[in-house]
């Protein structure tokens, strides 16, 4: 069932995000030429600069688009009239939520890939890629007698976890807003900021406590010690993230199982 839910959720979301993604790539290529605007006559220069400003705004919007498109899909299919279809399917609420989280994850990866294509396209006329000192950078990092493996792994896991939590926060806010009789959407937005603040506070407090007494370590700039500190820090953040995820997930699931009230 999860596979089927995922398939239809991907269709619903991709029909909006895929055209935008293609547009971003094409625009990046065009913007690559626009960057040489000093070479152009004045009227063209004005258009070129405006087009570049628009392009950067587009990138910012695109980076966040995944969250919003999926949030919109969640809202429509869970709490509006389409909810009558969603909530009468013979599937578990946890599968429905999980399917949309997986779609959010997959599209986040795609958006990152699009950025990895777009930025080089933008700068291809300005930069000779052969001149970037990648090998030297890797050699420099390898010159210390430390292993980066754990740090890299925990960092990636933390990034993935944060992604899931960010999306789930929106779902939980929508679910909480649904508990009110009136102004559900307004309260969802208020709940979102509330949740966001609460979660930030939890992170700040716990990680702040962890950091006490570690300032000297950071000041020594001795890489193995600094890296150990970051490993502890990242591991703690990862566990907090996992707990926040569990809390938000069960809250959302409970509300839709026991407190559903479609108009």
């Amino acid at each position, binding site marked *: *069932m999860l596979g*089927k839910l995922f398939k*239809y959720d991907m269709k*619903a979301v991709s*029909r909006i995000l895929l055209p935008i993604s293609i547009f971003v790539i094409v625009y990046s290529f065009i913007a690559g030429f626009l960057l040489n605007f000093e070479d152009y006559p004045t009227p063209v220069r004005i258009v070129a600069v405006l087009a570049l400003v628009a392009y950067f705004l587009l990138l910012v919007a695109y980076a966040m688009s995944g969250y919003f498109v999926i949030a919109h899909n969640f809202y*429509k*299919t869970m709490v509006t*009239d*389409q*909810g*009558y*279809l969603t*909530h*009468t*399917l*013979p*599937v*578990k609420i946890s599968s429905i939520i999980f399917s949309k989280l997986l779609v959010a994850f997959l599209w986040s990866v795609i958006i990152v890939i699009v950025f990895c294509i777009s930025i080089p396209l933008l700068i291809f006329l300005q930069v000779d890629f052969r001149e970037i000192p990648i090998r030297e950078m890797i050699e420099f990092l390898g010159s210390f007698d430390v292993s980066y493996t754990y740090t890299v792994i925990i960092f990636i896991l933390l990034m993935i976890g944060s992604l899931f939590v960010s999306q789930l926060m929106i779902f939980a806010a929508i679910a909480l807003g649904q508990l009110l*009789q009136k102004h559900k959407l307004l309260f969802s937005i208020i709940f979102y900021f509330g949740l966001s603040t609460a979660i930030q506070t939890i992170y700040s407090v716990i990680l702040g406590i962890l950091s006490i007494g570690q300032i000297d370590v950071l000041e020594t700039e001795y890489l193995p010690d600094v890296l150990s500190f970051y490993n502890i820090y990242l591991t703690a953040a990862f566990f907090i993230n996992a707990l926040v995820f569990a809390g938000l997930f069960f809250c959302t699931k409970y509300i839709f199982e*026991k*407190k*559903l*009230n*479609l108009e």
Partner: protein
Amino acid sequence: MENILECRNLAKKYGHFVALSDVNLTLQRGKIVGLLGPNGCGKTTLIKLINGLLEPSSGELKVAGNIPGMETKKIVSYLPDRTYLNNWMKIKDFYQYFAEFYSDFDIAKAYDMTSRLQINPNNKLKTLSKGTKEKVQLILVMSRKADLYCLDEPIGGVDPASRDYILDTIIKNYNENGTVLISTHLIQDIENILDEVVFIQSGMVKLHASVDDVRIKEGKSIDALFREVYRC
């Protein structure tokens, strides 16, 4: 064979508002039952409870011996009184969707009904009129071989000729062990296909009887009795 629906002391409150109180109702398999009553009397609340879209405040509701959940959703086919499909999918995409999620969905029957109602399955839902959308939703619901069909105002927005076809479809799709629960105001139109009626008023069941009994005892049609019971 167990009853398809059993409600015992079922109640539902929204804050202080009592939508249903002390509902005791049993529906047998293989019947077409009319759920009748004025606006706001609790018909839709009862149907939502059956479909697991609401939790009871107190009391018990069971469908084929199970409380509403995944197992009951497999055997209950629900037609709400609103458009619950997204706008961007084509009609044939919805048939595929239902075929994938409901093992009792008969896709051939769905296409057959589509052609009889002269609808093009390649159309996107957003291009259809309200009446045609309602027909598509009805096709989806009646193409399932469910044990309980809950139809909330199935013929409200539909032209009279299509109404006859729809009522005809409801009787024909009537599998022997299946029950159809129709909530409607258009009593005159459906009276002839009903086996039983349930009158609800202010959240309580006022009457549950077979149509024949009503006609013999009261000596009047269901429509006439309704007008009398619910006189303003």
